[in-house]
């Protein structure tokens, strides 16, 4: 994961993406007990967005030139299939604005707030996943202020 995050941070520093935050099961793991997952969902805001249609080509081109391998809807970085999801509504944009800063093996990164993870899961019909609202409810650690 260290390599994955370093690449994403480098991509942000190089201006390919404006900002990002980890969502999905990996993001939920920041607050909950780890649950098996095989991919990483990364929500991004692309710079200079003007039209309604978005292209992820710059991200794919950049990452492929830095050792990433395309695999279905993912790009594999450091052993993790990563799916990049451009923020498509105000909820997701707010999740990136309010993202919690943390570190993995010394590499800085951002994770969506717990409330946003739950809201997005409900919004996308994924409420039965291991990171459902009840899982957060059961875990006393489901508070974004309790950054670790």
């Amino acid at each position, binding site marked *: 994961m260290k390599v994955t995050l370093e690449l994403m941070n480098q991509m942000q520093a190089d201006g390919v993406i404006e900002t990002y935050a980890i969502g999905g099961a990996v993001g939920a793991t920041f607050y909950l*007990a*780890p649950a098996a997952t095989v991919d990483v969902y990364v929500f991004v805001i692309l710079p200079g967005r003007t039209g309604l249609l978005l292209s992820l080509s710059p991200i794919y081109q950049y990452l492929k030139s830095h050792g990433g391998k395309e695999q279905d809807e993912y790009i594999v970085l450091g052993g993790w299939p990563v799916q990049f999801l451009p923020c498509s509504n105000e909820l997701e944009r707010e999740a990136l604005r309010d993202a919690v800063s943390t570190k*993995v093996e010394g590499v800085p990164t951002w994770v969506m707030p717990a409330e946003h993870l739950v809201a997005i899961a409900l919004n996308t019909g994924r409420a039965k996943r291991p990171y459902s609202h009840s899982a957060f409810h059961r875990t*006393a650690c489901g508070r974004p202020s309790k950054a670790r």
Partner: protein
Amino acid sequence: MSKPRLQARLAALRFTEKIKILEKLRDREHAISASGLRALRGKVSAARAKPSDVNEK
């Protein structure tokens, strides 16, 4: 240790430690998928489900 207590203990780990666990879980998933054990388990479950289906009829 009870399951809720274990869950709480795991949830309290540092993010780096949790990511290491995720990586182990991911590798295990890949190993199970590659071995075909999951498909075999599906077949066994289907075979076990059949007699009850018959009884229900």
